């Protein structure tokens, strides 16, 4: 007790210390000057000019001029500007007017990288390969629809999965391979200006409405967008990606999947800047496949003698249903208004955006309106505060795609079975005919069905930086960060009673009305002490963090609706389909020491202690240590090769955690109802009483070589990331009535290489070319597996699934037949057909500025060797609608026997002596004739993609000035495209596809997804 009181006193003392501050004296003169770009000679506005050793400074104006009062002579001015190398200039009271030139930091060595909760470090001193995406790279080529969409192809070591091409989709981002099997956190932690933002996917109930997930993993098949899609990419100044545990250790228990740190734009002091941006463009299917032809002969062969089908083909009707449904050109419009500026004390940045995108299916679309206000204020010369407020409204009509069961509520699935002669168009009274070929008329579904999620969201950040003690050699400061992320989501899934499938139901008309409310609150306080002892700089941090997450959701369902009514309360049958609450609290304590010997050797040691209410033992602290060292060999002086401007070797080790999902630590009773009475059943899911969180340990080694005075940089990184105590289900013998016990089942290892070569091969006043090549590879292997080998994901061994067993990657795609032991008994493992993980990937980013005012840039991305379970093709084959269905030349005149053996190309199910295998490309006419092996549908999904390309023209300032008489400062025009071309042998819309959303394993399963679209946009930007 006494001890506790003592600690409380300590706590108070620490807090009181923070309020102290110190004064410094002054004696003054004034210096002014002009700053220009070394290559082009253009003035540089917005450069930070600071008197070294003080916090006094200013910012250059639009013409690159600055003026500053200096307190003592001589002094040193430091000039810094994002994207340029820093510079120091010595001045005395006699140098009243100076000219300063700055050169671009092509390889970003001097860029300051945020690496922790309260720390940042110069890139050249970094011990990890932390990648930074600047606003220029994120948005400079084209405008991504969502934040995740802007990361594609720009990062090494990243694997991005997407549900399909529905507008508003935010892909799931996987850093350095799989870090959980799905029961720990699978998505990286997103932090925006210190706010732990919510990236959940909010289930709508659609997978029950369409039957896709009537059984297991229902919500996984909801085709949801994760909520990071709410963020307006245009608000972002830079993104830093801590890919592995060695970099992310300081984020502790939630960082197994990596951390994505986002910094938004800030205002700069000077003239208030107003910019208006307008985009107009369109979405278009990037890759329609075509549709099989039908004729009387095929109808008879395929459907037998059904007179209705024969009448249909004789009617002469022919509609390409693929084009009919997926062939729309959806309009894209986006308007952005930005106002930013400020003075020495206060800077502001206000950005408003209204975006509306229609998809390639009628009535699909994504609308997002956002406004952000960032304010920075220097309260005293010791205290700086900043706040960022962001309100978002987004509305997403995701349409009906992917898997379904029995309901027809999926376009692709529906048209797989609908031949061109079907009659589906509404009559003059707007009545849609029944689709005799499947469970639904897709046109009626498109025109009458609703699948919408609308989100209102507010994100607030708050930062305070308080200088406590400053001496010539040391600085003690306190930083405080807090964040709130509140979102409210409304979802509506509506299948009106007039739909064909609904008419076959006992209570036609089905509506799911969902409401969800989620609130994240986080705060952290850090004390940072920096001191120089001789030639060594010590940076010490201690701090504490806390995160609360609360959420509540309700989905009500109504069946039996009349007259187009969508109110569940008016339905014949009403139910609360789902109601769920979650509350989570994490707390952590952090200590870190960074030691820098003259930028020669930079070492870091740190530890984080975390506890979380998600753990089975909610009071247990888990420790996550880290250690790293970077050695800049070029700074020792013995390496005198002019061409080498940097030679750094680095090594980093760190540990992170992965928490169990909410609810898995409880053994519960479930309710069921019968005959008006409530019943209690024992859950079939249990938990291991010794369950621990997942932990990852990573060692990362690297070599960075800077060449030609920073014009080129080669970065080579190797990592070995072990994830221990993977949380998985032990599946006991089913006959015990327990189907899952959550336990720590195994270990997983990811090893990989990341190579990045960047630089500027051409650099003249008329042409500047920047280029970067990334190459990366990751290999995964389950190194320990303490529960029976099992399959997961997909649709069972007969259609391809994933295998979890020791010695193989969890991305291994398997299928029938089952492997057998020496006695011919099945061993619970299946034949291996592929791997969802690519062998390697390559991306190639280029930006060329030419003829002064033109900029051309593009991103090329290659993925090699990944496999996908292509069940779309399985369905097309089954419906006879595969584009190549009639492409059967290789089967014509095949004999039944070749060399006395059965000819695999000869099939004669109906016994007429003629080869009846009529499907192209060697796939079976009906799967059954091939046995139950899914091999033919597990397909290589290698691709080349032009992710982005853009061409922009900025009006010469002379023209702007003469035309607009100084009213307009800058006019920029451009055309750009997103996801422009796919080059792949994979036979479907897009080789990057996942029926199972953000599921970390088992993602590459395709079931008639929303086809991917190409976005083409025209841009006009005016700065006033």
């Amino acid at each position, binding site marked *: 007790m006494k001890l506790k009181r003592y600690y409380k006193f300590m706590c108070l003392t620490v807090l009181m210390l923070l309020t102290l501050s110190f004064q410094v004296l002054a004696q003054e003169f004034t210096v002014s000057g002009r700053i220009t770009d070394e290559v082009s000679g253009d003035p540089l506005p917005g450069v930070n000019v600071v008197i070294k050793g003080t916090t006094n400074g200013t910012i250059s104006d639009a013409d690159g001029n600055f003026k500053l009062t200096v307190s003592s002579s001589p002094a040193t001015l430091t000039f810094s500007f994002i994207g340029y190398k820093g510079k120091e200039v010595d001045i005395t009271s006699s140098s009243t007017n100076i000219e300063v030139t700055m050169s671009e930091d092509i390889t970003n060595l001097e860029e300051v990288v945020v690496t922790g909760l309260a720390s940042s470090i110069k890139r050249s001193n970094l011990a990890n390969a932390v990648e930074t995406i600047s606003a220029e790279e994120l948005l400079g080529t084209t405008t991504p629809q969502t934040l995740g969409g802007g990361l594609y192809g720009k990062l090494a070591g990243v694997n991005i999965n997407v549900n399909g091409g529905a507008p508003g989709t935010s892909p799931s981002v996987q850093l350095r391979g799989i870090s959980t099997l799905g029961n720990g956190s699978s998505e990286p932690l997103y932090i925006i200006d210190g706010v732990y933002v919510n990236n959940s996917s909010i289930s709508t109930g659609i997978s029950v409405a369409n039957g896709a997930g009537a059984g297991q993993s229902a919500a996984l098949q909801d085709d949801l967008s994760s909520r990071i899609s709410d963020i307006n990419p245009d608000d972002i100044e830079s993104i830093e990606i801590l890919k592995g545990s060695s970099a992310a250790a300081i984020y502790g228990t939630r960082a197994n999947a990596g951390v994505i740190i986002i910094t938004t734009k800030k205002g700069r002091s000077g003239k208030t800047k107003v910019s208006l941006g307008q985009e107009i463009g369109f979405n278009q299917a990037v890759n329609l496949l075509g549709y099989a032809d039908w004729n009387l002969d095929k109808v008879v062969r395929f459907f037998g003698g059904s007179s209705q089908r024969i009448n249909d083909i004789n009617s002469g009707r022919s509609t390409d249903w693929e084009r009919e449904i997926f062939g729309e050109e959806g309009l894209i419009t986006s308007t952005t208004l930005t106002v930013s500026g400020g003075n020495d004390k206060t800077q502001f940045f206000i950005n408003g955006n209204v975006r509306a995108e229609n998809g390639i299916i009628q009535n699909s679309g994504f609308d997002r309106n956002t406004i952000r206000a960032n304010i920075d204020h220097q309260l005293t010369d010791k205290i700086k505060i900043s706040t960022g407020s962001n309100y978002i409204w987004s509305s997403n009509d995701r349409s009906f795609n992917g898997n379904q069961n029995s309901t027809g509520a999926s376009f692709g699935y529906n048209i797989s079975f609908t031949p061109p002669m079907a009659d589906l168009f509404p009559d003059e009274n707007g009545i849609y005919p029944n689709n005799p070929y499947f*469970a639904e008329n897709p046109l009626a579904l498109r025109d009458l069905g609703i699948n919408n999620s609308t989100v209102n969201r507010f994100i607030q950040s708050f930062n305070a930086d308080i200088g406590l003690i400053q001496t010539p050699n040391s600085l003690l400061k306190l930083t405080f960060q807090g964040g709130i992320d509140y979102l409210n989501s409304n979802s509506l899934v509506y299948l009106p009673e007039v739909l064909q499938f609904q008419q076959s139901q006992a209570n036609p008309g089905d509506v799911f009305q969902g409401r969800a409310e989620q609130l994240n609150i986080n705060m952290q306080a850090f004390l940072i002490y920096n001191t120089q002892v001789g030639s060594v700089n010590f940076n010490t941090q201690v701090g504490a963090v806390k995160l609360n997450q609360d959420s509540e959701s309700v989905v009500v369902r109504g069946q039996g609706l009349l007259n187009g009514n969508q109110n569940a309360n008016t339905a014949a049958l009403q139910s609360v389909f789902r109601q769920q609450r979650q509350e989570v609290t994490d707390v952590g304590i952090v200590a870190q020491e960074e030691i820098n010997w003259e930028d020669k050797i930079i070492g870091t040691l740190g530890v984080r202690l975390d506890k979380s209410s998600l753990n089975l033992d909610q009071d247990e602290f888990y420790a996550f240590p880290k250690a790293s060292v970077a050695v800049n060999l070029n700074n020792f002086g013995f390496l005198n090769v002019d061409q080498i401007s940097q030679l750094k070797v680095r090594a980093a080790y760190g540990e992170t955690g992965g928490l169990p999902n909410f609810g898995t630590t409880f053994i519960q009773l479930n309710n069921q109802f019968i005959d008006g009475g409530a019943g209690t059943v024992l859950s079939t899911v249990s938990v291991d009483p010794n369950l621990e969180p997942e932990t990852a340990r990573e060692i990362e080694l690297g070599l960075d070589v800077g060449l030609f005075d920073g014009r080129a940089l080669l970065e080579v990184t190797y990592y070995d990331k072990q994830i221990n105590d993977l949380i998985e289900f032990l599946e006991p013998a089913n006959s015990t009535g327990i189907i899952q016990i959550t336990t720590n089942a195994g270990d997983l290892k990811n090893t990989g290489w990341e190579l990045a070569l960047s630089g500027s091969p051409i650099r003249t006043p008329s042409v500047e070319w920047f280029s970067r090549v990334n190459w990366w590879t990751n290999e995964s292997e389950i190194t320990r597996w303490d529960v029976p080998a099992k399959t997961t994901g997909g649709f069972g061994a007969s259609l391809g699934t994933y295998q979890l067993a020791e010695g193989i990657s969890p991305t291994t795609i398997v299928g029938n037949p089952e492997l057998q032991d020496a006695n011919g008994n099945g061993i619970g493992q299946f034949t291996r057909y592929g791997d969802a993980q690519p062998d390697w990937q390559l991306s190639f980013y280029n930006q060329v500025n030419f003829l002064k005012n033109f900029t051309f840039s593009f991103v090329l991305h290659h993925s090699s060797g990944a496999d996908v379970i292509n069940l779309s093709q399985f369905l097309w084959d089954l419906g006879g609608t595969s584009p190549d269905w009639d492409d059967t030349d290789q089967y014509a005149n095949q004999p039944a026997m070749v060399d006395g053996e059965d000819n695999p190309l000869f099939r004669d199910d109906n016994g007429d002596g003629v080869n009846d295998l009529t499907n192209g490309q060697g796939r079976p006419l009906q799967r059954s004739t091939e046995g139950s092996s899914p091999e033919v549908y597990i397909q290589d999904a290698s691709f080349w993609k032009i992710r982005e390309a853009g061409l922009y023209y900025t009006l010469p300032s002379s023209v702007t000035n003469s035309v607009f008489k100084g009213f307009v400062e800058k006019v920029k025009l451009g055309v750009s495209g997103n996801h422009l071309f796919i080059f792949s042998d994979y036979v479907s819309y897009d080789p990057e596809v996942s029926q199972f959303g953000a599921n970390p394993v088992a993602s590459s399963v395709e079931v008639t997804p929303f086809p991917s679209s190409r976005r083409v946009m025209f841009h006009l930007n005016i700065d006033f």
Partner: protein
Amino acid sequence: MLIAGLSACAIFEIDPVTNPNAADAAIVGSNASQAQLQSLINGLESRSRGFVATTSRSFGTFGRETLSFRDSDPRFTTDWLGRAGQPDAGFFAVVNTYDAPFQTIAQGNFLMDAGANTDAISEQQLRGLQGYVKTVQGFQFLVPLLAQSEGGIRIDITDPQNPGPFVSFDEGLTFVLGLLDEGVTDLNAAGDSFFFSLPSGWGSFNTPARMIEVNRAIKARASIYAEDWQGALTALNASFMNMSGNLNDGPALTYQGGDGTTIQNEAVGNPFNPFFFPLDAFSTQIEVVHPGVLADIEEGDLRAANKFFPRSPTNFVNNQALPQYVATHQDGRWSTNNDNVPFIRNEELVLIYAEAQAQTGNLAEAVSAINTIRSAAGLGDFTNPGNLDGVIDQLLFERRYSLWFEPLPHRWVDLRRYDRLSELEADFIATDEEVFTRLARPTEEQAWDDFIGAGG
């Protein structure tokens, strides 16, 4: 010290989070109230329905009583018809012929433990509870046992991490028969009434005395699987069999007031009658009557008229995986999706009686029972052929129509009992169909034994 100082601050304390979405299992583990026991009974009744949809559809298809038309997934008419080979461990969509009955049995054990660990009920009341639960468990054990057949099942399943070994089909049956007998012993000590109530499907079978009649009916069914003909006759004597009574009499699984949500995967639910599909509604996703059954109808059979609903020609059902065939009839037994589903009826007991009499040499008595059934179906008498085979032929014919597509369909099991599965070949629609003799042991069961065998 600084860390120690900081860690003392209140912000480091976490309020323990309890499950906000469900009750903790420990609540009923000891000292459960009667109301809590009643809720566990309701849970058992709810779980009892878990096997029905999957088992009726798959067994119905295996025995060529029905076809499952699901254009969304062709495997219902490929894999289930043997067109992709014999069933393997991960066989398509048959999980609930196994998991659901065992989960029901586990719920029963949980319920009996809760009953034994409380003072809220008397010893006599406990015996009533145990007798009822064992009766339900006896019925549920038959589902996986019939699916696995000679592959056997586990019978010692109380410890999830330490289950007993698989036992043979015969040992399994012996165990079930014994369990049912234990149930009767308990029920005999249970007084005149139960302390709990049972849902509407049980009708008047809601007292210990009448529960014994159900228990004996189930035992009679199990006895013919064990070919214990005398045992079957003895059991029938104590059952609700009534030669002159309504053939539809019997207890049912309760679907009254269903809300349609699935009870799979833990969701709170109260399913609809899974056999019900709106009559003649346009659909390609429906159970249809197998053409083999239609082809062999004896003229004037009221069973066919009552059970097989003819769809209008514009609403005949196509199936992509059986393109050469158009289905004409659907299940016509149900008027609403809230109809309760009988799980053992007087009609079956009369047929069991006929079979057991025939097998014990009383052919005339057997023929008389068969003719009771035929007369109710509006058919003329069957003449005693004077030999066992002839009587059994006719018996199997009557069972095919009398017991068509029951929740635990009979024909596949019946033909297997009499080694006549090859008769199903006559009903093949596609040339690549195969007949199944049994389902393979599920993957998880195999994997568990491999795992234990490997020292895990």
